[in-house]
């Protein structure tokens, strides 16, 4: 871990100003991913801005019947919030499917969105990785790629986004509120927030340097039955091989998004029109153009089967 200077910010504006003063600085909140990466010098900020004192830890009702989740709301608290459990169960389910009790107590809403990939080649600084060291190549392509992405991949990167929470936010059409170093604010739709790797896999999101997430807003509840099925090798404390988030209405319409298959939470709105035709049709559309490796091709079938079981459960029948 490189040496860094440290300051505590007391307001979003102060944090933004600090970021402006220190190009290359990082905000730290939960720290669960940033410190992990700093220890390996995958992240090497010279300055840390501690945003834990920003009082962005409230979950508030919005005027249009939704919820505004402060950036610093811990994963545990978000999952346990009565309104989230009742009206946005898919989000609660996704949160508690992730990490461990300890990590969820630390991790924040904003930090969870900003998690970096868990690709082992990204984590091993002896190995080439275009995400870590642009232009160095991709170790995973042609290497050990069982966990990796099958859709939206590029020649430069086949990493996945590891978040469960973000998959739920994607089907909920959440928006991300930010403040930039110049003090200006903006709102980013979750669909636009995470990037595909393309030829710039080092950029995970559309955030600008020094831009701070202040809140995540959920539109009014969608109703329906909420599901988050996470499939993994061990029963807990593991990243998804694939995960399926779904909200299914009584009439069989609904929304579906996938985790563990792409560089971002994966949702293809057009695929949702296929829901009445069943899992095969939906999966085929969701995974159109998939380019799996021989090690992760099973994910295509796994998505279809997981979705099939989920839709059967939604209908109240045995899969």
């Amino acid at each position, binding site marked *: *871990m490189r*040496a*860094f*200077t*440290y300051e*505590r910010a007391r307001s979003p504006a102060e944090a933004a100003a600090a970021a402006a003063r220190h190009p290359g600085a990082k905000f*730290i909140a*939960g*720290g*669960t991913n940033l*410190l*992990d990466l700093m*220890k390996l010098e995958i992240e090497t900020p010279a300055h*840390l801005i*501690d945003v*834990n004192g920003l009082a962005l830890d409230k979950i508030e009702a919005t005027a249009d019947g939704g919820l505004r989740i402060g950036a610093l709301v811990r994963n*545990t608290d978000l*999952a*346990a919030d009565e309104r989230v*459990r*009742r009206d946005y*169960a898919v989000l*609660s*389910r996704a949160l*508690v*499917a992730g*990490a*461990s*009790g*300890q*990590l969820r*107590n*630390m991790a924040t809403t904003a930090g969870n969105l900003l998690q970096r990939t868990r690709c082992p080649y990204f984590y091993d*600084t*002896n*190995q*080439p990785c275009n995400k870590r*060291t642009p*232009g*160095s190549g991709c170790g995973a392509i042609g290497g050990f790629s069982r966990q990796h992405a099958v859709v939206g991949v590029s020649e430069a990167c086949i990493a996945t986004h590891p978040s469960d929470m973000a998959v739920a936010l994607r089907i909920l059409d959440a928006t991300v509120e930010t403040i930039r170093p110049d003090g200006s604010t903006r709102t980013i739709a979750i669909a636009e927030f995470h990037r595909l790797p393309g030829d710039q896999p080092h950029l995970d999101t559309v955030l600008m340097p020094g831009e701070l997430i202040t809140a995540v807003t959920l539109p009014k509840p969608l109703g329906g039955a909420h599901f988050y099925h996470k499939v993994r090798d061990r*029963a*807990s*404390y593991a990243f998804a091989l694939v995960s399926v988030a779904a909200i299914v209405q009584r009439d069989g319409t609904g929304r579906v998004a996938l985790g563990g298959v792409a560089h971002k939470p994966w949702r293809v709105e057009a695929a949702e029109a296929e829901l009445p035709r069943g899992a095969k049709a939906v999966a085929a559309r969701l995974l159109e153009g998939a380019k799996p490796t021989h090690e992760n091709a099973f994910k295509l079938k796994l998505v279809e089967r997981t979705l099939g079981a989920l839709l059967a459960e939604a209908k109240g029948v045995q899969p």
Partner: protein
Amino acid sequence: MPRPDSSDLTRREFLVIGSTAVAATMVSPLVKGQNPAAPDAPSFLTKVSFNVNGKPCALELDTRTTLLDALREHLHLTGSKKGCDHGQCGACTVIVGGRRINSCLTLAVMQQGNHITTIEGLGTPEKLHPMQAAFVKCDGYQCGYCTPGQICSAVAMLDEIKAGIPSHVTADLTARPQLTNPELRERMSGNICRCGAYSNIADAITETAGRIV
């Protein structure tokens, strides 16, 4: 069999910086004294104070010091263990403000003003916390290295159930969770025990909960 890439010195990640002559001149290990004159050193020190097991502590630390290393190396509270230093094992679990966390993934300087409970704060060999006593009785450990983390985690986990926090196996998200065996196992899954004492740990926690609740 094929022997791929027999010589590729050109890989950029190995081709790092400058001179190759230095190593040849090294005949004895480099020994240097302390480095107080390092011009950047002072600005990387930060003062922090927090409360550990009921006692106030004031430290001046390298900003890079994790809470775990502050406890183990500066306060000599070595009950909290370093198993992985990356949040992958749970051996470093401590309780901060009533919540269990991985102390390896937070900086000491981020804990300003916080109340921290470590395994040493729960009980002593002479006066065991009920959870510690139950671990002894149920043989909920073997090598003992994950044990302090398991116990801190278990104590805080029971409070999480009482607080109604749901888990991955909670069937009904709107109902109060109960301390069932599946709930307990899911909630304790952030604490790895390679000796495989899980079945006994579950017994110890169940027994303790029965007495505490």
